[in-house]
């Protein structure tokens, strides 16, 4: 869904911030596109994970006082969640793209439907209620397998 809000509804919407990991793989790039779409839809505001990693005091304070912090990670490395937690910020939702069924690499391509799937999952609150997924292997996913190899 790429259409923008056409009305001023949603006045009671929670004050949310979205932190995409924006990693180099397709799964990381999907988080970035989804965060932008979610911002356009009025779900929340996208935060630069690189700025957060520097420990920018103003940004950290803003995130600590937010009603919700939604972290979008590409893979099981959960870099964005670790960066947030490293600065004392507890994510309200943490969605991991590989848990949503996306395979990390080798292709960097993704579609609008992929982005829509992530946006819908955020609106549904999937990162809030997800249970830890059954481990597929011992790999953290950093090799690009998505966590499926041994």
């Amino acid at each position: 869904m790429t259409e923008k809000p056409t009305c001023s509804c949603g006045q009671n919407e929670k004050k949310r911030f979205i932190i995409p990991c924006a990693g180099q793989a397709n799964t990381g790039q999907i988080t970035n596109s989804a965060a932008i779409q979610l911002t356009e839809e009025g779900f929340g505001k996208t935060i630069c994970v690189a700025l957060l990693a520097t420990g920018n005091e103003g940004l950290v304070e803003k995130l600590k006082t937010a009603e919700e912090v939604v972290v979008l990670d590409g893979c099981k490395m959960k870099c964005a969640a670790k960066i947030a937690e490293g600065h004392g910020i507890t994510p309200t939702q943490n969605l991991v793209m590989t848990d949503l069924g996306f395979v990390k690499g080798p292709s960097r391509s993704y579609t609008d439907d992929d982005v829509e799937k992530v946006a819908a999952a955020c609106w549904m609150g999937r990162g809030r209620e997800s249970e830890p997924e059954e481990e597929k292997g011992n790999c953290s996913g950093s090799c690009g397998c998505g966590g499926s190899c041994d």
Partner: protein
Amino acid sequence: MTKIEVLGTGCTKCKRLFANTEQAVKELNITVELVKIEKLDLIAERGVMMTPALIINNEIVAEGRVADVKEIKALLTE
């Protein structure tokens, strides 16, 4: 039968709320009467000042925001 009304003029947030409601009903595997109300006069008639809104059995349970699936499921099982 539970009656659910999703009120909104048809923008993105209204569509998201409707989709979340459909998903909640599906996950609960219950039979409900689910209707979408988009006309402003009908929305105002129900006392809703901010959209999107969710009405369950004639009671406004969420107004001016998109309730997520977990919340809607909780509201439906109360």
